């Protein structure tokens, strides 16, 4: 399929593919097995300018948009979404500053993120605040020129590895989600520490930890936007980054499809390659069709977002929910095509299947995505006349 990429977009895709093939594929099983953060690969991505894709040029980025970022994420994900989440997770941490930060905050933080010198991470989830963000219990209280932060964030992607954290905290608990604020905390700040690294089913190359704040004081200049804007900031940021999960999903699907087709061409049973059997062909055909449909939807969502459109929540949620559900199905099917071999760690598809599950959970569960889409439908149709 030709998606009519620009020359630059094609270059980004080619470069990310080369890095995925040469630097990620050979080590992905080991990174998964050892639950090892891919520092070396992040350095390669940084040296290749890929960490700066979606940041404006005045902050040292390459001036690309959601689409450029997603093309890189897709290609890295073809090899390993445990690695691609380390890459893309930094973007998620940076977006609150990029979209809502002051000029001073952008100048201070974005160039180091664009060069890949520092990684960022985003902290929203807590033990009692997952899908329901109003349950956030981490607080920030203004004391003189500083905010004093207390509480614990949970399952934070990039925890411990990132240098810059954008954290959603309660500055006024009485106001519910309207009392939430977004604040920047740098690694190394007194009173800020990390919990143990979580043991996960998949994406095991990525680091997931608690962020523990105990009378952690940060300058009040670290507040992003105004007090009370935290929830809106989080939602707007997620609207923009959800296609990134879609990009992970389509890359993962492509990786699974490639493996399954190649295996089916070589594996012989009943005297023939198993790809000659329609029972296998039909599984592969569905995998390919669903992958392509995901890709078309994710690319469309990216292009719509990059056009400057405001009402992006619905398409962004659609791109995430559809592609991640497809990724779960496609990776399960890939294991089926490989049969017993697929279930063994000698082949990459069992990892892909384990990895896929997170895509239906993080950055808003797929049930929450459907809520978003449903709410948007209600709003849209309320404004239309009945025929």
């Amino acid at each position, binding site marked *: 399929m030709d998606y009519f990429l620009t020359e*630059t977009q094609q*270059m*980004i895709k080619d*470069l990310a593919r080369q890095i995925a093939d*040469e*630097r990620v594929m050979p080590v992905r099983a080991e990174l998964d097995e050892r639950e090892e953060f891919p520092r070396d690969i992040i350095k*390669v991505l940084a040296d*290749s*300018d890929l960490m700066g894709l979606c940041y404006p040029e005045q902050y040292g980025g390459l001036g690309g948009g959601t689409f450029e970022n997603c093309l890189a994420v897709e290609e890295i994900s073809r090899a390993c979404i445990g690695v691609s989440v380390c890459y893309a997770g930094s973007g998620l941490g940076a977006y609150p500053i990029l979209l809502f930060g002051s000029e001073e905050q952008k100048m201070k933080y974005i160039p180091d993120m664009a060069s890949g010198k520092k990684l960022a991470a985003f902290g929203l989830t807590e033990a009692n605040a997952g899908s329901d963000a109003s349950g956030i219990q981490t607080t920030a209280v203004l004391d003189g020129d500083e905010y004093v932060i207390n509480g614990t964030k949970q399952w934070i992607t990039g925890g411990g590895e990132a240098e810059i954290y954008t954290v959603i905290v309660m500055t006024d608990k009485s106001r519910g989600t309207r009392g939430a604020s977004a604040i920047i905390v740098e690694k190394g700040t007194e009173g800020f520490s990390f919990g143990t690294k979580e043991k996960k089913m998949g994406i095991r190359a990525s680091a997931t930890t608690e962020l523990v704040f105990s009378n952690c004081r940060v300058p009040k200049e670290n507040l992003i936007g105004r007090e009370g804007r935290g929830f809106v900031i989080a939602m707007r940021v997620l609207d923009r980054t959800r296609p990134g999960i879609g990009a992970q999903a389509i890359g993962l699907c492509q990786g699974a499809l490639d493996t399954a087709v190649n295996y089916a061409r070589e594996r012989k049973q009943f005297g023939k390659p198993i790809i000659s059997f329609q029972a296998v062909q039909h599984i592969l055909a569905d995998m390919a069709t669903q992958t392509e449909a995901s890709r078309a939807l994710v690319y469309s969502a990216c292009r719509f977002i990059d056009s400057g459109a405001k009402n992006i929540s619905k398409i962004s949620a659609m791109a995430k929910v559809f592609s991640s559900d497809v990724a779960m199905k496609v990776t399960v099917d890939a294991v089926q095509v490989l049969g017993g071999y697929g279930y063994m760690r000698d082949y990459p598809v069992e990892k892909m299947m384990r990895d896929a599950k997170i895509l239906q959970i993080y950055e808003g569960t797929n049930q929450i995505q459907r809520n978003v889409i449903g709410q948007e439908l209600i709003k849209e149709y309320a404004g239309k006349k009945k025929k």
Partner: protein
Amino acid sequence: MNIVVCIKQVPETTSVKINKDTNTLVREGTKSIINPFDMYALEEGLRIREKSGGRVVVISMGPPQAEEALREAVSYGVDDVFLLSDRAFAGSDTLATSRTLACGIEKTGDFDLILCGKQAIDGDTAQVGPGIAENLDIPFVAFVRKIRELDNHTLKVERMMDDGYDVLEVSLPGLITVVKEINEPRMPSLKGKMRAKSINIPIWGVADLDMSDSETGLKGSATQVIKIFTPIRDGKREILEGSIEEQIDLLINKLNDLKVV
């Protein structure tokens, strides 16, 4: 420090086919790459620049399409690239090639260090690097696996040997050919790839290098390729029997018959 890296465009060996009638490589439709050993030379050049400053110039001799190899070199972040290409260069053996490259290198300006891969994966001669040094009358070390020290006047390196390594010191300007143990080549960068797309690559011919036709190409070559063929492996074997003495006599007779002793 001014560094010159010599690269050669070669066919990717995994995809090479042989024309059965002429016994030559079928280059049409074959993917071309930068000679893998030259990638280590390129990487080492870039690392030296990162440490000591200066510029990295890449030069290649070959047909017009060798320009692609030079564009790829740009994507890794080198400063300037030059292509030596002329019909008169065709048929150059290693002698004529090293003479031509030496002229090209001199034309690029002042240089402190020339880096080459230990050999090309198509010709496998390992002669061009040392040949360039001879033509320029500068010291050289082949098969370098590590640069230990480098300043503006001297270079201390480890030369890989079959049974270990030698440590050698040479004065600059000098030339080294490198082995793959020296480093791990980097990935291209996006900014590099963008620059590679648009960079204007100077192409120098015989006239630009102030050479005469007799110094390069087929005329400037000391070796002539008469015939290329794939050796036939017909692997005949015969087992001699009898006592040791009888077998020895039989063997001597056979060797005499074959006129090989």
